[in-house]
């Protein structure tokens, strides 16, 4: 059975929480080195290593996020929501169409009544003249 939207999102959240912990650890170490009054060659080398580590972690965060959104989009939950909204819209449009149809019928009744009135007037004239 395919995972649900909630399951996929929960998996991603767990993965991202782990990556965030690593990201924060790298940032904290880099900040500590930058805060030193003078940087040694080893500090500079370490900053470079940390920058590379940070890049990798951020790439991994991107990968989790981008893969997850595509998986979320393909879930049955989203297809089901689309179907439900379309059904609601169809019902609303049906009610609107009904009101408009009555308007068209009323136009037809009005036109027919005009005809009846004309016939009646002619009959009245004939009766009077007759």
């Amino acid at each position, binding site marked *: 059975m395919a995972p649900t*939207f909630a399951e996929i*999102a929960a998996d991603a959240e767990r993965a*991202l929480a782990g990556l965030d912990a690593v*990201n924060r650890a790298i*940032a904290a170490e*880099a900040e500590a080195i*930058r805060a030193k009054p003078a*940087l040694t060659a080893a500090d*500079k080398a370490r*900053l470079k290593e940390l*920058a590379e580590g*940070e*890049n990798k972690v*951020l790439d991994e*965060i*991107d*990968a989790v*996020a*981008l893969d*997850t*959104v*595509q998986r*979320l*989009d*393909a879930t049955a*939950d*989203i*297809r089901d*929501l*689309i179907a*439900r*909204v*379309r*059904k*609601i*819209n169809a*019902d*609303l*449009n*049906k*009610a*609107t169409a*009904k*009101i*408009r149809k*009555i*308007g068209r019928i*009323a*136009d037809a*009744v*009005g036109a027919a*009544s*005009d005809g*009846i*009135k004309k016939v*009646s*007037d002619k*009959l*009245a004239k004939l*009766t009077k003249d007759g």
Partner: protein
Amino acid sequence: MRRAGVMRCAVLALAVGLAGCAAPDLGAPLTAFSDSIGKAETTFAKADQAATARENQRRVERAVAEPNKVVRGQAGGGECLASSQACSLWFEGEPLRAATLVGQQRILLRELGNYAEALKQLTAADSTGKVKAAADKATVAISSIATLVSGVPAAGFAAPVAQLVTWIYGRYQDNLKRSALRHATGEMAPVLASATQKFATTTRLLILPERTAAQRDVSRAADAFRLQPTPAAATAYLDKAERMDALLKGNPDAVFQQIDETHKELVRVLGDSDLSLAELFQRIDKLGADIETLAKAVEAFHKAAG
């Protein structure tokens, strides 16, 4: 008994000038709802666009690492020939360049926009004018025939009957609208709650690559400034930090929450209209004398038309 009930309704209608049962005014909450969906669509599309650009960059990096896996056409060949119908590049079952990462959710958002439009259309739909015109013409025609057949002038009775027909139709249309609006908003409430929650989750993920890019920029600027502390490096560091600050302050969740909140307001207005209708009928019930007057007039018409 039934006819007396109808006549009573007609008098009630006449007593309040045929306007007693107007549909609730949904103008303001409908506009707010429609606007909030429009904002959400913009936010979502922008986030998708930025994320798709980053995803396409990743796909190209993967293709560069494994160029043998880049194929022409989804089926792994047959495209990009003079006799082909199309030409596209694919990598491991995916197009090398995606147009969107959240196509289904954008469809869902569009359908929510259609829902707002359908609510507006139903609220605006009104055939009472046409029904009134038809009823006026029909009663004139009928009274003309009645006069002809019976010899008794019946034109005086035509107007109340036309008003009766118009009022009954007005009630019917109003009930049709109320029922459809209540049903739709009731059905939509749980759908919207679920959809907005999902949009918020997806958007938080869509904007992550933009945030990681901003973090990279800030960290590189921090190192550059620390290694060579010049005014230019300080300014660059500050600029990157301010850009990231603005990114972090953006709250996409709020945009989607707004949709749900404005919809709840719609439901509330529809619910409130029940009270005003009940109050209106209470007031109308006191107009007993007029009921008798019209009942007599209509009876007289029936006799005349005989």
